[in-house]
């Protein structure tokens, strides 16, 4: 009988990450915009820049950036994924925090990548990038120590806590910021802990189940009648908005970075 001696799964990493990290010192950050913002949702990346600059951050955007490697990781093609992660490691050199407006991409870098690099010689470098990587909400609240947001956002908001922020500090951080905005009312909705059904390649490999899960989320959100559905992950919003559009349902979606920016004084 095999007698393994170590537990090889770095489980609990996501928990460790995001919650217990020391605040950051300087104000220089590197922005990882995400491939979805690069291709579809440019305004989310723009809002992220404006929010970070409002907080006094000097935002560096490494031009060579592409993707975090998650599509291939989830698809099972770990060799392809590792090539992309290695590219990210090369692109985001230095020691500044890497801030990403996505819980999913952040989790890929501080958790997923460690799984696929477990037996690779450059695991250390990947861990290094993971340690510097912050989801935006977590960064603002726990990295910079900001606990309230100025301005005004006169709307009721349903906050979808994306699945990749389970066990991290991100969900609470985003809720804290949103709640602090004048005029913004968070509304609860049913089965909030359930997934939106996106799941990356899952959405196209299991279109029926994926859409059925998304439809349930839409039903719950709509029953709460929010003015706007907000999340920290563009991918969840893109899935839900895409379903709603196809079904002729009116649904306003915003990334929380857009909400923060739009709340700032002097914004329309």
């Amino acid at each position, binding site marked *: *009988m*095999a*007698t*393994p001696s*170590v*537990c090889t*799964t770095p*489980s*609990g990493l996501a928990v460790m990450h995001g919650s217990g990290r020391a605040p950051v010192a300087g104000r220089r950050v590197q922005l990882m*915009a995400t491939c979805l913002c*690069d*291709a*579809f*949702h*440019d305004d989310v*990346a*723009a809002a992220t*820049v404006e929010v970070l600059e409002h907080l006094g951050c000097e935002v*560096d*955007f490494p*031009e060579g*950036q*592409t*993707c975090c490697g998650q*599509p291939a*990781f*989830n*698809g*099972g*093609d*770990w060799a*392809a*994924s590792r*090539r992309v992660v*290695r590219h990210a490691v090369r*692109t985001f050199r230095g020691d500044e925090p890497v801030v990403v407006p996505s819980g999913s991409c952040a989790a890929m870098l501080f958790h997923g990548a460690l799984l696929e690099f477990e037996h690779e010689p450059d695991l250390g470098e990947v861990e290094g990038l993971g340690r510097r990587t912050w989801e935006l909400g977590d960064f603002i609240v726990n990295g910079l120590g900001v606990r309230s947001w100025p301005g005004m956002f006169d709307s009721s908001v349903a906050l979808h806590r994306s699945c*990749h922020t*389970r*066990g991290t500090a991100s969900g609470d951080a985003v809720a804290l910021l949103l709640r602090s905005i004048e005029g913004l009312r968070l509304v609860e909705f049913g*089965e909030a*802990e*359930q*997934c939106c*059904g996106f*799941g*990356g390649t*899952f*959405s*196209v*490999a*299991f*279109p*029926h*189940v*994926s859409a059925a*899960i*998304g439809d*349930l989320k839409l039903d719950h959100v709509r029953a709460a009648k929010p003015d706007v559905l907000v999340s920290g992950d563009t991918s969840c919003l893109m*899935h839900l908005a*895409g379903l709603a559009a196809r079904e002729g349902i009116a649904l306003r979606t915003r990334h929380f970075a857009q909400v923060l920016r739009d709340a700032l004084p002097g914004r329309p």
Partner: protein
Amino acid sequence: MNAQPIDQAAAALSPETKAAVYEGAKVGHEKRTKVLFGDYADPDRLRTLAGEIKQHVVENLDTYLPAVEARLAANGAQVHWASTAEEACEAVHAILRARGGKRIVKSKTMVSEEIELGEYLEKHGIEALETDLGEFIVQLGHERPSHIIKPIIHKNRRQIAELFEKAGLGPYDEEPGMITQRARRFMRHKYLEADAGLTGANFVVAESGRIVVVTNEGNARFCLAATRCHIVLAGIEKIIPRDRDLALFLNLIARSGTAQQISVYNEFVSGPRAPGQPDGPDEMHVIFVDNGRTDVLATDCRDILRCIRCGACLNVCPVYRQAGGHAYRSVYPGPVGAVLSPLLLGERFAEKADLPRASSLCGACNEVCPVNIPIPDLLLRLRGRAHDKGLPSPGTPPMGLWSLLATQPAAWRAALAGGRILNHLPTRLIPVPALRAWEAKRELPPWRGGEFRKWLKLRRKRQGGGQSRPQ
């Protein structure tokens, strides 16, 4: 369109079945959350501790198994080892043959489903009656369970009443009390006629050799107390180190599985009837079943052997809720089954290599697991294994071109610009299956590739200075 088997099964599920599964799973999850967080300030610490204990057992099975064998033997039980399903079935048969037994009653044993014991015994002229109400209904309908602890979660009471009527248990009556009464009446004399009682084991305690069986119907007690011979089928991973660990595990399994503070019947059996005891079986046999578990132990997915079969991951899983248990083509459905079932197949892994893909990787399964199994990580590892073996995965986009673009910034930027064609061409003219699968259910937002980069350059120019790093 290429489709994954589980996606097809979910699409084919009748609205009635889907509603039954969804509601049953949802209610199970909600009650679990209420009782667990109502009773404990920090249930996550309990889950973590229980996970560590089980992981310790899994990694030290080579010392625990001989220890438990010695303990059971000292208690007067006979221990058998079965490496395969076939060997396990033969072991049960041999015990019955030696006693001239023709009839057994069964309770709480997923392993017997796993090794297809019922079919085996039937072939050999032995009647094996399921005595858990749900399992009994499954047996009447010649079906398979669709949930680990609620085997008939996919059925509503009308369907059950019809089944009972067909089986000659009385005229149609869908009142749950009546259904239970009828099953009970039918079973009562079966216990007395049975030559042996077969149960599973929720836990096997190493230090005492105590077999622990957790039930809510009391039928396991009839199986092991009313018969002269008690046979236990237990997977080799069922061990926990000490009796005191039961305090943790019994509290967690009842709350995670059925949202109870404690299950109604908790049987603690450490051996056959001792001299001086008035009742109980004269013989006790414990059959430890490997059936692929040692192979799982040798992989980087061995954490799955911590599982205590509570079903919490099924209840919370959005995919299980849509597809139901039968879609998984396995005794163990849902997230845990998606990991365990292909692994238990060993060499025949390919037959169920699609199961680990049936997940959005939402992580809810890990969040509710009473032994904190990192199920999403294990699903991902199995996807990696399937890919490395070159197994096809219908609908999963190939990643070659993407990884090429994503490692060459100039090509990436060109693709960002080139993607604009999506705004001008109808999707049906674009031969990309992933795009079509997306568009089958959702709209694609307008392509705005490169717009952010342009915006940022302009902003920097206006701000006068601050350069973005050239690549």
